[in-house]
Structure formats: structure tokens, C-alpha cells
């Protein structure tokens, strides 16, 4: 009867992004937002109303979007360059490489509705390759916050950080996992739950699913460690090596293809330091069928039960 009211409140992390951006912009007139017609989908209407001159909308033109962002940074501004993650990264990848990363400009790339957030709109609108693309480019931090608190903290961090950073945000509702006053540290994972039998590493909308999986495992006497690893680049080598040494098995979960993303980044550290069994959960290298993001995550083995099953399988195999 009370099931509905006991469900945790879900947050659209775009709200935390724009609330933080507006609060910072009120204090610092160097902060500008740049978008590609995505005022609504980037939730920038409030920003536009408060700081109309500082919302630069280049229209549906992602190359100009990122290029103009680099020019604004050259002119002393702190541009938050916003667009649907799929278009921002794929359409303007060379601008991200040359104008932002190689030129070392102080540009904040904000990929909105990343992963499979656009669900039923299909693979053209999914952004499940962006970790791989952007982390292959030198000199860009890559960050996928797990909830509203981490989003706010990461946006505040990005404004202070000198240099290029890619924030990968979702619109899919997630419960709050981190405290209100959470402070974001680049390249540092958060241990959300400690355990010795297996480690589950996740970020973005997968972290709360990893926590639910750990609860299920605990019910069966399995103690899983859960690392929230928002920072894909730089990555927390130390936490990964420790997890490998202390738990002997690692499951990664991401709203991204299993080729080149979080799982790959973790595996790169594991194989060169402390090889242990791993399972990379993610989009299995296909264009997903029709469905919502949450449906597709379940479909690809990333329901809490699916993640728990992957963890149990690793524990059996390492024994």
C-alpha cells in the first residue's frame, strides 16, 4: 500500500546543473552559457531570463558551438558549452580536440541527456561512445556525476578548474546518494559501500543501481564494495588497485558501450597492476532496440538483479 510513498525522490540532474550555474553566474560575470538551440533541453531558460546577454545561442551548429566556446574562453570568459551529449561530442569532436583540448582553453563542455537518456528516440540520439571519444583526447577531464549533489559539486568544481572538462549529465531520474555539501574531487572515487567479496564500480545513472545490487547481495551474505567513479579521466588508479587487491573481482557498470568507456578504463589499470577477474556491463556493442533508458539498462543486464548476478558469477569464478 505504501510502496509508492517509500520510493526515494528522483532528481533530474539538469536542475542541479542549472541551479548551480545560475548561482555562480550571479557572483561571477565571466560565466557564460553557450548552446545550440538547446535552451529548453539544457534547462537554460532560467539562465536566459536572468542573464540574457550571457546566453549565447549559435543555433543548430555544433562546430560553431564549440569553436565559439573556445573563443569566449580566449576572451576571458568561462563558457559552459551545452548541448545534447550525442551532438556535442560526435558532431564537434574535432573542435573538442583542436580548439579546446590541444589549445588548452578554459572550456566546460556539458553533454546533456547523455547515454540512452533519449531512450525511444533511438540510437541517433544516444550518446554511448562519448567516454571513449573524449577520454582518448589528451588534456580533457571526463566526469559523469551520479546524482544531483554530485552534479552540483562537479559544476562548481568545473568553474574553478583551469582547463578543459567534459561533464556528462543525464535527464533520467536518480535518487540522491551523496550529501548536500558533497565536494567533488577530480580523479577520486567515492566508496559508497565497503565490502571484501567483490567491487562494483559505476558512475552516472548506474551508481544507484549498483547500490541496489549491493543491497541484494548483502541479503545473500555477499559483501560488495561500491565505488562511484564519476571521474573517468583522470581515473582513480589507487582505488582500483585497492579494490583488485582487497576484493579480487570487479564489475563495472556504465550507460555507454563496453568498448572504451569506464569498464575499459578500469581494465587498463587492472591488467597493468593487479590482474583480477572483471565483468564490464554496458551497451554490448550494438545499436539498442526501442525502449526507455531504464528499460534498456535492464535489458543489457544492468538491473540491480542483473548486476548482482554478474557479481555472483565473478565470485564463483575467482574461487
Amino acid at each position, binding site marked *: 500500500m505504501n510502496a509508492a510513498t517509500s520510493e526515494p525522490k528522483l532528481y533530474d540532474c539538469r536542475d542541479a546543473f542549472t541551479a548551480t550555474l545560475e548561482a555562480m553566474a550571479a557572483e561571477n560575470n565571466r560565466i557564460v552559457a553557450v548552446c545550440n538551440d538547446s535552451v529548453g533541453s539544457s534547462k537554460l531558460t532560467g539562465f536566459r531570463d536572468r542573464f540574457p546577454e550571457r546566453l549565447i545561442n549559435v543555433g543548430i551548429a555544433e562546430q560553431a558551438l564549440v569553436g565559439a566556446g*573556445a*573563443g569566449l574562453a*580566449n*576572451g576571458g570568459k568561462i563558457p559552459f558549452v551545452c548541448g545534447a551529449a550525442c551532438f556535442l561530442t560526435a558532431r564537434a569532436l574535432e573542435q573538442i580536440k583542436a580548439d579546446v583540448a*590541444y589549445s588548452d582553453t578554459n572550456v566546460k563542455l556539458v553533454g546533456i541527456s547523455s547515454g540512452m537518456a533519449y531512450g525511444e528516440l533511438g540510437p541517433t540520439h544516444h550518446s554511448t561512445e562519448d567516454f571513449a571519444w573524449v577520454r582518448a583526447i589528451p588534456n580533457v577531464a571526463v566526469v559523469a556525476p551520479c546524482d544531483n549533489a554530485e552534479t552540483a559539486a562537479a559544476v562548481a568544481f568545473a568553474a574553478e578548474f583551469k582547463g578543459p572538462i567534459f561533464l556528462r549529465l543525464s535527464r533520467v531520474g536518480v535518487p540522491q546518494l551523496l550529501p548536500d555539501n558533497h565536494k567533488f574531487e577530480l580523479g577520486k572515487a567515492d566508496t559508497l559501500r565497503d565490502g571484501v567479496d567483490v567491487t562494483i564500480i559505476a558512475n552516472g545513472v548506474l551508481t544507484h543501481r549498483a547500490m541496489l545490487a549491493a543491497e541484494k547481495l548483502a541479503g545473500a551474505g555477499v559483501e560488495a564494495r561500491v565505488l562511484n567513479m564519476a571521474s573517468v579521466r583522470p581515473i582513480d588508479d589507487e582505488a582500483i588497485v585497492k579494490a583488485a587487491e582487497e576484493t579480487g573481482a570487479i564489475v563495472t557498470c556504465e550507460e555507454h558501450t563496453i568498448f572504451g568507456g569506464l569498464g575499459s578504463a578500469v581494465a587498463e589499470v587492472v591488467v597493468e597492476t593487479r590482474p583480477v577477474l572483471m565483468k564490464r556491463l554496458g551497451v554490448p556493442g550494438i545499436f539498442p532496440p526501442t525502449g526507455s533508458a531504464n528499460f534498456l539498462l535492464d535489458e543489457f543486464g544492468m538491473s540491480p538483479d542483473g548486476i548482482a548476478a554478474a557479481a555472483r558469477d565473478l565470485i564463483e569464478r575467482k574461487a
Partner: protein
Amino acid sequence: MDTQDLRRMANQIRRRDLQAVFEAGAGHIGGEMSVSDILTALYFRVLNVDPTNPLDPNRDRFVLSKGHTACALYVTLAEKGFIPKEEVATFLKPHSRLNGHPNRTKVPGVETNTGPLGHGLPVGVGMAIAAKLSGASWRTYVVTGDGEMQEGSNWEAIASAAQYKLDNLTLIIDHNRLQQGARLAETNNLAPFAPKLEAFGWVVEEIDGHDMDQIVAALSPDKVEPHKPKAIVAHTNKGQGISFMSDNVAWHHKVPNAEQYKQAMAELEEAAQ
């Protein structure tokens, strides 16, 4: 610098560029010869830039979007005092900061890393918007090649520049009629440029891109129309100043042999008299 001195400087830049390309055994000499007069006018007459304070927030911004002609920019920056003149001899050498395309993180005076074509103008649009937001009077100048205008990103930026009424932005198209493999007209002929740019809301001026008086006059901030970005279509010759290179598609990135080098240098030296 008066236009007579500018002509002498442009000749000196051409000679140093020719020598650097010959010694390095690589470079994009054709486009370097076509853009040299424009670079000279910008750095020695128009741009408010200070080699002793290359990151002055109020400096004018210059972007060489046709980044493959980096050597001409390096020589110009050296003449202006941004980098030591003797450093030009390191062009393309291992670990030299003077690689084939300019790098702002290493070379003072470079504003953004170019090389892939169609990048400079969108960045220039952002610079010009930044100046407007700051209420600052510094101006942004972007040089593109004519073949480069085939990149769609330029037209994204052209539309945005008009929308934002960027009268503090000047685009100079080095219209030498040749691209890497063939003539523009035989490839994807965007010429004439003026009507297309005007249709987007730009003010356009056509000049002889080797006539120093015309270049200086066209670049004057006094000749800006309020609320409109400005384009200068500079009619140039690829390989300008060297008879066997001029308007010859073979010389996009060909390197002269010893005999050709001697002849080319002799022609430039004669023109300097």
C-alpha cells in the same frame, strides 16, 4: 610603419619563409607567399599586440585559420619580436615548438591551434562576442584560405557573426584561387564570395591582396559598418613573388630544389631593391 616599409617587411618575410621551407625540406610555400602581405599589414600596422605582453587582455586577436601556412606566421612573429629570429631555423626540427601548424600553448602570439580547416572563424566569433560582453574595444581578425571556405563550419560561424552583429570581427579570405590539388573553380567553386557573404548580412570589400595600400585601407577600423561583421576578399596569387610558383597549383606544398631556391631567392631579392 608606412606602406613602403610594409612592402620591405613583406619581402623580408617571404625571403625568410622561403629559406626556412628550403632548409626544412617541407612547408606550404604557395599559400605562405599569398598570405605574406596580409600578415605583414596586420602585425606591423593594424594589430594592437605587444610581444612583451602577449596575453594582454586588451590585445587584438588574430587567428591564422589556414594554419598550414604556419611558417609565414612564425617568421612574422619573429620579426615582430614574439619569438627569437634565430628560432625560425628550428622550423619542423625534432622538439621545435615551431611545428607545421601553430600551437598557442607553446608559441607566444598564437591565439588558437589551427590546422584542421574551418576552425578559426568559429573561434573568432567567440572572441568577438567576448569583447562585446566585456564592453572592450579590441578587435578580432581571422584569415582563411579560399578553399577552406568549403568547410561548413565557416558558414555556421558566418551566420552567427551576423546574428550577433559582430562589427568587431574581420574575416580576410586569402583568395588565391588554388587549393591543394586543383583550382578552386575546378573543385567546389564558392567564388564569387562577396554575394554569398552579403546575403548572410556581412559587409564585403574586395581588394588586391598584394597591394599594401589597399590592404591597409581595407583593414582600417574606421572602415567598419556598425552592427555588421566585415569580410575582405583579398585577391592574391599562390606563390606570389616567385615567377615559377605564382598561380601554379603544383606549389601547394612542394619544396624547391637548390637551383629553384637560388632563382626564387634572386627574384625576391631583386624585388627588394
